[in-house]
């Protein structure tokens, strides 16, 4: 193995048909570990077949190919390799490192991609948090209060929406079924706005309760705006309407 004295600005190797390195430039020695004296140990295993195939098909004309090379810095450095056989069955190989500014650009693209997907996650997380808070608020807007062994009270707070009633229904039905109540009071004094789908869901809940338990169900504290809404649905066979919680409790006391 002979070192070329010619000052070459790129790594250069001369190899024979067996892949033995017969000569190398100074830069080749800087880039690669030449101690084995064989080209195979410089080329990534999954680039060797490529080198074999392309170089054996080359004839005497120059060929160019990309190969991954094991360099002193990087086990997988990408190079443009220019190769040409001479009449003595020796190939001159020039190794042109692929411009690393390319890599930089690609890294930046990847960073942006990452950022996009991570802000995606953050938004998703916030959305989940919000949904949980809303659910919790809904649950708190219809607490279940057992007043005696046979009487329970469910006061509703705030706007009546389908989501809220759905959230409340679950725990409400469970609590009513697990006791032996005879009467369920819904106190609507603190109800704000009433959404059409909310009222529908509420009526569904009332009917389910009536149907499944046969309990007496009373709606109390109905304000005029709610009365108007409720009047549209024919509810008399399902529930009784009373005036206020106070009246209801005085009546029970007697």
């Amino acid at each position: 193995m002979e070192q070329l004295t010619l000052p070459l600005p790129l790594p250069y190797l001369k190899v024979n048909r067996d892949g033995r390195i017969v000569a190398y430039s100074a830069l080749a020695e800087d880039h690669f570990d030449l101690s084995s004296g064989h080209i195979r140990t410089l080329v990534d295993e999954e680039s060797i077949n490529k080198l074999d195939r392309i170089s054996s098909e080359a004839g005497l004309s120059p060929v160019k190919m990309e190969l991954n090379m094991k360099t002193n810095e990087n086990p997988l450095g990408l190079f443009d390799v220019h190769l040409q056989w001479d009449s003595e069955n020796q190939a001159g190989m020039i190794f042109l490192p692929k411009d690393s500014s390319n890599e930089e650009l690609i890294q930046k693209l990847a960073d942006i991609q990452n950022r996009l997907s991570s802000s995606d996650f953050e938004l998703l997380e916030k959305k989940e948090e919000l949904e949980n808070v809303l659910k919790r608020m809904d649950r708190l807007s219809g607490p279940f209060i057992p007043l005696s062994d046979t009487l329970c009270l469910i006061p509703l707070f705030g706007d009546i929406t389908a989501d809220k009633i759905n959230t409340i229904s679950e725990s409400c039905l469970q609590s009513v079924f697990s006791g032996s109540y005879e009467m369920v009071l819904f106190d609507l004094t603190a109800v704000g706005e009433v959404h059409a789908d909310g009222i529908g869901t509420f009526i569904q809940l009332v009917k389910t309760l009536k149907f499944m338990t046969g309990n007496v169900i009373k709606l109390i504290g109905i304000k005029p705006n709610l009365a108007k809404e409720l009047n549209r649905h024919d509810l008399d066979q399902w529930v009784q309407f009373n005036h206020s919680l106070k009246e209801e409790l005085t009546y029970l006391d007697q």
Partner: protein
Amino acid sequence: MTHIEALASCLLEGDPDKAWACIENYPESARPDVYHNLMTPAMRHIGHLWETNKITVADEHLATATCDFILSRLSYGIGKETSAGKAMFLCLDGEQHYLGLKMVDSLFKEHGWETRYFGPSLPLEYALHTAENWKPDVIGLSVSIVYHLPKLQQYVDAFSRLPENPAVLVGGRLTDLYNLRPHCKEDTVILRSLPETERWIQNDLTGGQQSGTTNSTPSPPVFES
């Protein structure tokens, strides 16, 4: 030209519309079939074109971006109902080959899993941090480059110390080429393909025994239809 070659050439042209048309023309329409029988072979065919000196790594970058777009479009909108469990997916630090991982993420979503997909090169501390807070049932790792194997062991070790004891799945190109068991723990699940992964998911749902690949007999494809 086969469907696979046709898709590969659309990907290399960087033409997402043409590539999408290839997907639509493909006779099978179930996502796992498209991933396994069309897109994976198309990307591997692109690898073959590089090996035969027809294209460069720069072309592969363009094909990758186009393929990524197609994958996003294919999996858009799945994963609405999420009840089966939580799974996070990542590539080892430095590993840029993420397309396979993205397919696996999509597969889990399709089976009703809630997933977090981190894509290429996720440093271990970050992965651990997420795993500690989010408490996934499954952590899926992908590795394609031989030089990343020592890191595999590091990741697997760290995840095996998590208190929730998530199932650790390992996949990627190298599972086909080497026995990765020495780089893993006994209970690490090594999965060599999408059909094998889909079988694991199905077994998991029915609570069956989970072992992944412990011997070296390749499993037959599971996508019959």
